[in-house]
């Protein structure tokens, strides 16, 4: 049986969330085996202007839901809009990125559509005509495989960076279909009054491919600014911090990585002067490549690190920043 797939392309103010494109890799691997179709949907008043960029990933059809009520994410209107796209595309599998939007809306769509839902998936495969989702539970301490019931729609939110995006093929044309949808009054009871940008130009840890994090060993906010920020900027990454560093006031809690802060899964995580408390490891062990810089060779962070440097971060990190700059300029 062929599996037809619909991917939800997430956009904010006309800019596509880059991780959305990773869904095409998942979709192709699932559809490929069965000869199924891959379609995409874009939500929001800017949807129509993004069809060319999305078409480069070669979906068969692109469904746009362009209601002005979808300018900001709100759970109820977006649930309705995604359900309208599902009704038009009639997929067997619906894929979203496990972003703040994806994990907020997918459960409502699943409840409304009586669908099977797997959250934060790292690998998706089909066994027979059943979708099987791999994910982690207990803060990464166990690996689980879940089967999704096959007599209903399957929905999966996919962990950012679990798959890499395929190469785009600009100039590819896709069939575009506008989906008519307007939320009812009862669905508009919640409104977004304001969106306040945080982090003053530096990327947020939840959206960066590279994170440079500092721990208590930094000893001050100034040290963060002198040592950690330049490396993050050279790598076009985000700045993170351990709970100890945030509690000490070196960085705001919005940058805290860990079970009680933000759980991150970047391509590269550089831990500077972080020993690796359990709650910190739980928040970053899903990173693809981990670099640990610490003066103590027995620090727990080295147990999860790909590369380890037993060194004084105040000597090594500036040298690293220099090397990265040379690489980027050369």
């Amino acid at each position, binding site marked *: 049986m062929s599996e037809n797939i619909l991917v939800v392309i997430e956009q904010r103010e006309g800019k596509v969330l880059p991780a959305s494109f990773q869904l095409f890799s998942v979709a192709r691997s699932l559809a490929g085996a069965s000869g199924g179709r891959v379609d995409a949907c874009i939500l929001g008043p800017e949807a129509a202007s993004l069809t060319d960029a999305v078409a480069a990933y070669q979906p068969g059809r692109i469904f746009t839901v362009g209601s002005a009520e979808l300018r*900001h*994410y*709100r759970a109820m209107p977006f649930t309705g809009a995604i359900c309208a796209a599902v009704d038009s595309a009639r997929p067997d599998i619906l894929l979203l990125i496990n*972003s*703040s939007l994806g*994990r907020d809306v*997918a*459960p*409502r769509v*699943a*409840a409304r559509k*009586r*669908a*099977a*839902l797997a959250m*934060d998936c790292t690998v998706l495969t089909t066994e027979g005509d059943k979708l*099987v989702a791999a994910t*982690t*539970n*207990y*803060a990464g301490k*166990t*690996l*689980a*495989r*879940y*089967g999704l*019931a096959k007599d209903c729609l399957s929905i999966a939110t996919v962990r950012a960076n679990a798959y890499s995006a395929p190469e785009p093929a600009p100039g590819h044309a896709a069939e575009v279909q506008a989906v008519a949808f307007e939320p009812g009054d009862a669905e508009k009871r*919640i*409104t*977004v*009054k*304001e*969106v*306040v*940008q*945080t982090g003053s130009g530096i990327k*947020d840890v*939840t*959206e960066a491919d590279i994170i440079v994090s500092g721990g208590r060993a930094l000893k001050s906010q100034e040290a963060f600014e002198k040592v950690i920020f330049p490396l993050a900027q050279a790598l076009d990454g985000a700045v993170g911090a351990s709970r100890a560093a945030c509690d000490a006031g070196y960085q705001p809690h919005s940058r805290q990585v860990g*079970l*009680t802060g933000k759980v991150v899964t970047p391509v*590269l995580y550089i831990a500077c002067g972080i020993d690796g408390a*359990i*709650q910190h490891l739980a928040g970053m*062990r899903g990173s693809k*490549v981990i670099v640990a810089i610490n003066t103590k060779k027995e620090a727990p962070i080295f147990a999860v*690190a*790909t*590369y*380890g*440097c*037993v*060194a*004084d971060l105040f000597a090594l990190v500036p*040298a*690293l920043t220099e*090397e*990265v700059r040379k*690489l980027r300029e050369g």
Partner: protein
Amino acid sequence: MRIATIIKQVPDSNAPIRVSASGNGIETAGLKMVVDPFDEFGVELAVQLREKRNDVAEIVVFTLGPDKASEAIRTALAMGADRAVHVNDESLVTFDEVYAAAVLASAIRTEGDFDLVLCGKYNIDLDAGALGPAVAEYLGWPHVGAVTALDIEPDGRALVARRRIEGAEEVIAGSTPAVLTIEKGLVEPRYPSLPNLMKAKKKPVAVKKAADLPGLEGLRPALTLESMSPPPPRPACKFIEGEPAQMARELVRLLREEAKAI
């Protein structure tokens, strides 16, 4: 104003987690169990709302879990909730949070009209976060996910909440009834005192079975655990030697050529 809070009993975040021999779950014998810390924020918020306002008539705790979950209920009652509804029926035990949400929404509905339903932004056992939004969908209410700040007007209707999204913070205006899922930082849960733990023993707990819950016809868990295993060990850390300058050069080379991360 009537407030429902949903809690789940989960293993303590510092407890060692071992996959059971059969691979269909974790070893629970001797495991320290607690109220999920994010759900605990919901209970604390409810109690603080009562302390700040004079219109909170009732705080009811809802949980879906086995006999042992009564310990979690008692903690929530000792924190200040008035009574509890314990859905304790083996036939309803599931890894499917969307199904669990249907069960809990039904239990909430049978207890009359609430203005707020509060729960954690996710539970630290499954790390999924589908429960709160799905409860809202089954109740037909709006929800605000991962709330970091909350103001409710004196009328008990209009509310303003804040939530963090990627790179920004949203200010949300809305009204009750609504489901709010709670993020860390909104409130700091209190430790229940011994006298309050004793008093909690006397607070009413209603036990419900599937047959007591209307509206579940035609629904079933759609997500089943196929297998659980320990995560594969990460390859051993590759230590890089040398002076800082040499180390930096070698690390950048490895990140570029071997790991292809930069």
